[in-house]
C-alpha cells in the first residue's frame, strides 16, 4: 500500500471500536439498551434516558444526503491536491447523521436528498473509512 498522506482518526476508546467495525466492512452505531435510541458520534451514556448500557448495532448502511459542501480551496495542507472535493452530511435510516463523502458522484451533481449506501475504503492496513456511493435501489 502506498503512503497515505491525509489525516487519520486516532484509534482509542470508542473510535477504535467504530473504526474496528468499519475495517470489517460493517457500519455500526451505539444503540441504547435502555430506550433504543441510536447515536453518533459515540458517547459515554445515553443523553435521552441516562442509560450507560449500549450495543454496537449494525446500520442498514442506507441514508440520504442531508447537506453538503464542495470545497474549492483546501484549508488544510494535506488536502491541497484533493480540491475540489465534496463533503456530505448523510442522514441514516436510523436517524443519526454522519460526516463523510459520496465517492462516486461528481461534486457538481451532488444534491440534498440523494439516496446513498455506505461502502468502505481501506486507506491503511488498520483503517477503513466509511464512505458512500449513490444507492442502486
Amino acid at each position, binding site marked *: 500500500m502506498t503512503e497515505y498522506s491525509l489525516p*487519520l*482518526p486516532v484509534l482509542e476508546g470508542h473510535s477504535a471500536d467504530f473504526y474496528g467495525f468499519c475495517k470489517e466492512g460493517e457500519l455500526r452505531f451505539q444503540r441504547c439498551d435502555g430506550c433504543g435510541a441510536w447515536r453518533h*458520534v459515540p458517547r459515554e451514556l445515553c443523553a435521552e434516558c441516562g442509560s450507560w448500557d449500549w450495543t454496537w448495532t449494525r446500520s442498514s448502511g442506507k441514508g440520504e444526503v442531508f447537506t453538503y459542501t*464542495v470545497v*474549492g480551496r483546501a484549508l*488544510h495542507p494535506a488536502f491541497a491536491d484533493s480540491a475540489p472535493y465534496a*463533503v456530505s452530511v448523510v442522514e441514516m435510516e436510523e436517524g443519526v447523521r454522519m460526516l463523510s*463523502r459520496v465517492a462516486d458522484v461528481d461534486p457538481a451533481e451532488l444534491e*440534498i436528498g440523494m439516496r446513498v449506501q455506505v461502502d468502505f475504503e481501506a486507506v491503511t492496513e488498520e483503517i477503513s473509512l466509511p464512505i458512500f456511493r449513490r444507492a442502486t435501489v
Partner: protein
Amino acid sequence: MKEACIVGIGQTDYCRKPGSGLSQLALQLQAASRAIGEAGLKPAEIDGIMPFPNLGRAEEFAANLGCQNLRYAATIHMGGAAPAASLQAAAAAVNSGMANYVLLPAGWNGYSGARVRQTVSQDVSSIPGGAIARDYYLPFGFTAPPQWYSVLARRHMHEFGTRSEQLGAIALAMRKHAQLNSSAVMHGKPMTMDDYLASPMLADPYRFFDCCLETDGGAAVVVTTAERARDLGTRPVRILAAASGQPYPADEITNRRDIFRTGLTIAAPEAFGKAGLKPSDVDFAMIYDCFTFEVLQQLEEVGFCERGEGGPFVEGGRIELGGELPVNTHGGLLSEAHVLGMSHIVEAVRQLRGELGERQVKDAELGVVTGWGDFGDGSIALLAR
C-alpha cells in the same frame, strides 16, 4: 438587575501587509492601554481581566500593564462569542463586587501570523469536540470553519430558498460601510455584486467574499458599575442585558435535531426578556460576521425576522446605513478587520456615544452586539446610551 457600563474603548491599527510588527501580546496590550487611558483609569485600578480564549493569560496582561491589584481573572471559552459573553460575566463581576474595573482585551496577528494559523488548522484540539473533529471530520476533509458552517448555509438554501445574491447583499453592505471607515482594511476598495459573484468558491456556497478578513489588530474595552461610571471622563454606555448560550450538542455540528438552533437561539430571548425590550426596539446591530450566512442566521435567531426569512430581510438596503436596521457600520469582520468580535463592541459604543460622523446612525439609543464561536456558541449584549 443592576446595570454595568462600558467606560473605555481602545483599538490598534488594523492591517494586512506588512503586518502589525508587534507580538500578539503587545498588540493586545496597546489596545488595552488605550482603553484604560480613555476611561481615565490607571492600570493599577484594573482589578479584573478577561482574556480572549487561547490568546493570552490574565497574568501576563497584568504584569505588563501594571495591574497590581488583580483579583478577578476568567476566560469564556466560546471563540468569537467570547467578547459579548464576557460583557455578561464582567457586568456580573462588577455588580457583585468581585472586581471594580474589568478589562476585556482581544487581538491577534491573523494576517502576519499565518504560520501559526496554519498550525491551528491542523490541530483542532483547542475547539470543543476537538477529538470528534479529529476522528470523524478531518479524515474526510471537513477541516475548517468556512466548511463547517457552509453545510448550514447549504441546508438553509434548500429549506428556505435562500440565494447567493442574498449572501452577497450582506458582503456588499459590510463593504459599503467600510468605505466610511478609514480604519477599515477594505476602505477605498468598493465591491459590486458582480465582483462578489465572480469571487472563487471556497466552500460552496461560500465564495471568497463570503469569508472574513485575515488581519492584524487588537481592541479592548473596560467595564465597571453604573455608579463608578459616573465619576469617569467618558460618556458611559449601559449594558442593559447580556446573555450567552450553546447549541445542542455544542461539540458536534451535524447531529442537531434542529440544525439552525444555535447558542443565540437561547441567548437572545433571555437578553431581551431581562431588558424588557424586543428586537423591533433596536436602532442598529453589530452581528458577528465570520461568514455572510452566519449574519443571516443570527438576524433570524435574534428575532429581527422569522426563521427562513433572513434572505429577503437582508435585501434592498435594509441592513445598510439609512436602512431599517443598519448592521456592522464599521464594516465588520468581512470588511473592517477580524478583531474577534471585540471591534463590534467598540463600534457599538461609538454609535451610542454619537461620535461616528458620516457613519453615525441617527439618534441611536439602543444597539445589539452578537457573538458566534466554535460550532455555534452564541452571545448577545443589549447596549444603550
